[in-house]
């Protein structure tokens, strides 16, 4: 028989479960109370994330501009949610103890330690008569306790003034977050019709270039040959043509999107790479010609190098095969003297040197590969010949001829592309012009009389001071470049047959254009580099008639003068040409009245 106290459950109902429910409720209330108290932290963090959207979640080039606002809103919601959740969790951790919850019931019901004492006695298992009385009264007090009514949830509804302040702050943050340079530009100055048209033209030109690209030049092309040849191409690397197409399309897309700065940057890169690619055909032709000349020098009175420059460059391979044939010929072997052998060796070495130059750092991998292989074959041929092994020399020459034929094939491909590239570069120049005019606030064709033009020898504005009569600023800028191009061509800079200097005005002369080294190959192009100086389109009254230019031109010219001097000091300009360049710029220097 046990004398243990009788279970109090036979006397009263335990209140611990009720107190546990109260505690849970109070935890929830504490979380909401803390959130209400510190709501500004959550809002502030959300607003901060929204405002930092350009750094945290920048828009890609292909992303719609309106998504800036959407992303800012998402970041605001995420930021608010994170801090609000943390506050709710922190508030819940502030929940009272079980005894505290019991005393909270006392406080809510206006009792004095009825529930608190009863809970304490129940928790400690105290069951004397007096304690049982207290526990019974506590059970009666919590019986049927309505938690929702007794402990209402704190309202999260903010007061009016804080709500207004939060709304204003959040709106400002969303606007900051939605800000995108391109979007702002597109809203303030949407793409003009000229820009759209020029972008469409550039797209079409890129499409034409894509069609002109030989399948073998692009391993990814669907018609690219598979197997060994494809492997060879892969070794050599793909042509730069597809990259140009991609860049052109990106530039057009950026222009249509309103991203003028981005479009200009892409056009600049396109121009640089396009020029390189366009020059590839001529470079290859020159290299092959040099090799052919080295193997079979032109005799005096025969065709000159300039004339030969116009011939197809297939002569290099012929020259090599011819020489190989001679190597195999017993008659030639018998009639060869030491001097002739030395001459042959010299030619081989010179040809090899020219081939090695052709396969230098310039050009794509394919060029470098073929040129170097040709140089290696020629070098081995010379080595074999010097050892007296004519047959080996002939074989090496045959190999060199194959390399030369490969180079010729590449030249043909590049030539086919060059035309498309030239057209594309022209369109890119037009697009660039349209963009710059839009940036200057000038409209396109159809709006006469706006702005002023600098027409040197051509164009308008010579009769009316300060006024241009051209149709649209685009045409006026075009005139300037044409004039400059003509001047440069006259003094030996530029090649009329080269793309760009044909009156289409697509020679780019804007800033960021790098000047390439000029080499005397017979065709000289002179892309210019213009610094970040001022641009002034002013009427030069009476310049063509020898009268004094207006004061504004005298003020603008010194900024260009410094650039000219810097350019003249550059060693990349051939010394023989410097005087002419200096003379030209002297001629356009304003004369003090």
């Amino acid at each position: 028989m046990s004398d243990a106290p009788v279970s109090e459950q036979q006397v009263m109902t335990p209140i611990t479960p009720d107190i546990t429910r109260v505690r849970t409720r109070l935890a929830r209330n504490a979380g909401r109370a803390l959130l209400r108290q510190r709501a500004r932290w959550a809002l502030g963090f959300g607003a901060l994330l929204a405002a930092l959207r350009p750094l945290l979640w920048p828009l890609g080039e292909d992303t719609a501009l309106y998504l800036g606002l959407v992303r800012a809103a998402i970041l605001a919601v995420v930021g608010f949610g994170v801090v609000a959740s943390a506050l709710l969790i922190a508030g819940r951790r502030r929940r009272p103890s079980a005894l505290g919850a019991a005393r909270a019931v006392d406080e809510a019901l206006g009792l004095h330690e009825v529930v608190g004492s009863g809970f304490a006695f129940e928790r400690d298992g105290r069951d004397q008569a007096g304690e049982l009385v207290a526990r019974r009264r506590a059970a009666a007090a919590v019986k049927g306790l309505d938690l929702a009514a007794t402990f209402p949830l704190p309202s999260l509804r903010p007061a009016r003034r804080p709500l207004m302040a939060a709304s204003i702050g959040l709106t400002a943050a969303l606007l900051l977050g939605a800000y995108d340079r391109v979007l702002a530009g597109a809203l303030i100055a949407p793409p003009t019709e000229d820009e759209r048209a020029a972008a469409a033209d550039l797209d079409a030109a890129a499409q034409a270039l894509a069609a002109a690209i030989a399948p073998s030049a692009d391993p990814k092309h669907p018609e690219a040959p598979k197997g060994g040849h494809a492997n060879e191409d892969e070794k050599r690397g793909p042509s730069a043509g597809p990259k140009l197409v991609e860049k052109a399309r990106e530039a057009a897309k950026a222009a249509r999107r309103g991203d003028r700065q981005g479009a200009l940057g892409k056009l600049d890169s396109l121009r640089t790479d396009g020029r390189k690619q366009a020059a590839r055909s001529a470079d290859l032709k020159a290299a092959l010609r040099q090799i052919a000349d080295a193997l079979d020098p032109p005799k005096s009175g025969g065709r000159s190098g300039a004339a030969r420059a116009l011939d197809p460059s297939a002569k290099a391979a012929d020259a090599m095969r011819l020489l190989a044939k001679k190597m195999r010929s017993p008659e030639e072997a018998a009639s060869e003297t030491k001097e002739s052998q030395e001459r042959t060796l010299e030619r081989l070495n010179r040809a090899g040197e020219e081939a090695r130059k052709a396969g230098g750092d310039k050009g794509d991998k394919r060029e470098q590969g073929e040129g170097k292989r040709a140089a290696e074959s020629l070098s081995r041929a010379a080595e074999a010949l010097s050892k007296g092994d004519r047959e080996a020399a002939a074989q090496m020459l045959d190999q060199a001829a194959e390399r030369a034929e490969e180079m010729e094939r590449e030249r043909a491909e590049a030539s086919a592309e060059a035309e498309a590239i030239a057209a594309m570069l022209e369109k890119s120049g037009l697009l660039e012009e349209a963009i710059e005019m839009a940036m200057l606030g000038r409209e396109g064709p159809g709006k006469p009389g706006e702005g002023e033009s600098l027409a040197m020898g051509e164009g308008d504005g010579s009769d009316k001071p300060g006024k241009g009569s051209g149709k649209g600023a685009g045409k006026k800028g075009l005139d300037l470049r044409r004039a400059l191009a003509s001047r440069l061509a006259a003094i030996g800079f530029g090649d009329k047959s080269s793309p760009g200097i044909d009156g289409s005005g697509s020679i780019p002369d804007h800033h960021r254009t790098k000047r390439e080294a000029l080499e005397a190959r017979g065709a000289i192009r002179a892309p210019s580099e213009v610094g970040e100086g001022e641009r002034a389109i002013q009427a030069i009254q009476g310049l063509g008639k020898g009268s004094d230019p207006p004061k504004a031109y005298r003020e603008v010219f010194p900024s260009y003068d410094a650039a000219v001097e810097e350019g003249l000091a550059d060693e990349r300009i051939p010394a023989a040409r410097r005087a002419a360049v200096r003379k030209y710029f002297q001629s356009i220097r304003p004369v003090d009245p």
Partner: protein
Amino acid sequence: MRAKNDEGVMTNEPWASPPVLRVVNGSNVKEASAVARAPEARAVEVAANVDAAEVALAHAKTVGERLRAGLSSVIFGQESVITGVVVALLAGGHVLLEGAPGLGKTQIVRTLSKLVGGSFSRIQFTPDLMPSDIVGTSLVVTTANGGKDLAYRPGPIFANLVLADEINRATPKTQSALLEAMAERTVSVEGQPRDLPAPFFVLATENPIEMEGVFPLPEAQLDRFLMKLIVTMPDLETLTRIGARAEEPLPPSAVTFPDELLVVQAAVRRLPSAPHVERYAAKLVLATHAEKGVRYGAGPRAAQALMSCARARAVLDGRAAVAADDVKAVAGDVLRHRLGLRFEAEAQGLDADKIVLQAIAHTKVE
């Protein structure tokens, strides 16, 4: 509602368990249940005990309310003092009243004695009062056969309610005679201890005005009083009512009797208190030491006094357990006379009441 416990002694436990049969087993007498108690029977017993406890609590509350109502019917405008006196009475302690003459201190005790139905005595303390004047003395009496013998004559302290008026006017020796009796509940006369009647309640007064030639009670002696109540000047309305009363009020009839009062006091002592309330009382006492301006704080006896008075207050409110609010409510009266302040604090206008309020503000229940 008295019953005999297992030893056959009459106890005051209102819910004492019924006597059990004694089983004599050799030299050892062990108690054993005569009947094996089934769980159901124990449950019934527990329920009966709980109900008895409820009844006892209700009864104690009723007695306290009657006492308070009776005092309020005679004494106007001193509700807090009346409540304090009743609380101290139910807690079984003694009260020190401080107030100017004529504020009803003597009337309170007289009325209380009528209400309780016990004996009452008033001792006016003067500087020439001797201890024997309080506790009694032995006198030479003539016996029936003409001889002489010593007979003990009890002093005025042998009463249920004792009013010790202007206790600070008597010498420390005389004061200690009273204080010793208050603490021991017995007096020793000629080496022989004599029990004081039960219940025994002393209400001592101090005149705060005429402080010249007085013997202030030392702090150690003050600690023996459960409470120190301040009798203040009544307000205008109360004074008007007092002045309008032409005749002395009729003495009220008894609302209880001494034995019943003992039962009520036992019920008060039995009132349970939760651990956090007891801890709170202890923290409050310790807090009096930490307050600025305190020379010495309350001691352990103060913690006991706090809980006793809190229990009595809870019973008066009809509650089954002591609340922290009860402790806060009685803290001022209980701790006021147990604190010593620094001179600087007194110069700044601090008093014990303010110190206690600061301690209450700085002490949390949980």
